[in-house]
């Protein structure tokens, strides 16, 4: 949106709004429902189910990548799927984040030796948060999202610090 232009790197006047927007982004992470394998049951179904309730944190799912902020890669990515993952990542609007959920998405997991499996989704798209486990418990997924929130709010501070160094 056009407002981004006024909150760019060099507009000192809007530092506060920049912080506010990053805060808002961190609190409203809509993820794309893209369950590949086993992790989808834990990370997408149970995490948004009654006990863990992702909606509390403002995290809920959108079916279309155009409206999503986060892509949870929940499962093994193989060579056939890698193109789709890349395509979907490209379809998401900026700013966007990727969470590699589980051992398979992080490194290939138990299937790492099979030549058709991609060794971690970070070989296809940049990953922000890795969640270990096979599959990770829903709590781990929520902790992963808290880490992602921290990472997003910290972006402004880093940018401010860089600006201070320059001046």
């Amino acid at each position, binding site marked *: *949106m056009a407002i981004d232009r006024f909150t760019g790197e060099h507009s000192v006047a809007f530092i506060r709004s920049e912080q506010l927007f990053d805060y*808002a982004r961190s609190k*409203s992470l809509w993820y794309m429902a893209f369950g590949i394998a086993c992790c989808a049951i834990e990370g997408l179904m149970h995490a948004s*189910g009654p006990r863990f309730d992702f909606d*509390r944190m*403002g995290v809920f799912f959108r079916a*279309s990548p155009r409206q999503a902020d986060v892509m949870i890669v929940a499962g093994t990515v193989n060579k056939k799927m890698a193109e789709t993952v890349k395509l979907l990542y490209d379809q998401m*609007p900026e*700013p966007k984040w990727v969470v590699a959920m589980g051992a398979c998405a992080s490194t290939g997991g138990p299937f790492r030796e099979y030549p058709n499996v991609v060794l971690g989704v970070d070989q296809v798209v940049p990953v922000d948060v890795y969640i270990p486990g096979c599959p990770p418990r829903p709590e781990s997924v929520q902790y992963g999202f808290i880490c992602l929130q921290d990472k997003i709010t910290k972006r402004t501070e880093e940018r401010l610090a860089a600006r201070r160094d320059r001046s």
Partner: protein
Amino acid sequence: MSPLLIVVLRVLAAIGLMLANGVVLIYMLRKVLGHLHVRLGPMHMGPKGVLQTTMDVLKLLTKEDVTPTNVDKVLFFIAPALVFVPALMAYAAIPFSETWRITDLDTGLLYSFAALSVIPIGLLMAGWASANKWSLLGGMRAAGQQIAYEVPLLLSVLPVVMVVGSLNMSDIVAAQSGLWFVIPQLPAFVIFAIAGLVELNQTPFDMSEAESELVAGFASEYSAMKFGLLFLSEFSNSFIMSAIGVTVFFGGWMIPFVPAEVMQPVAPVIFMTKVYIGIFFMMWIRGTFPRVRIDQLMQLGWKWLIPASLAWIMITGLVIKVWQLGPGAS
């Protein structure tokens, strides 16, 4: 104050009301659905998560606005506006109380429906322009179902208009000082409720953006605030439909057996409460019902609702004629 200024202020008030309503309704939806589903809904932003929607709006505002390569650019940009503006226009005729209203139209009811009937064009446009097959199917379904159900929707309020003898919303409310029309006109209300849900693309008739079938329907390719506008106007529409229902069938700002003078100061509050109760029922349905299929929906509309509403108009006309009720009677 100059008349122009007043007009501008009124339009601004309508926009403000619409946006505030949208934000509140989205929060309400998430909370209502949460509690229906043995969850809590948003909790982290502000007390009980009240600021959650604000955060969502702020985020949508600053999101990148993607325009896919193959879209029909002009239509792609116009479509959200074409959906949003009629949703805004329809606020004009709604009487919140005897004095609280944006304008007092003699043909208020007709005007509201006319404004709402522009929306399918916007949805079809959005679906067509997106250059996405899912969107196209969603837009087609939206146009098909909404145009089909406009007929029973209008026919369902016609008996009330026949009894009152006026299309002015205030007159309709005033005519219900003794008895809400929902009691004598129950069949008309049932038809209105079903056709209204279809017009709103609400579950169980949300074929046009059926998430499990069409990904996100006509909104599939929209991102950032364009999607926000589509999303917001959906909630605004449900507010308007609920408001029309309250005005026509549930006595508007009035409560039976309470004198008008007592109610006068709190009339808008009563009206809003009734509207929100109506919306709550829509959300309840949304949280529990499965979706019907498009051919079943069309059969329901053409085979049942239109004949039923025509029959009910005839019965009402006969009753008015035989017992000399209505505006003709002294």
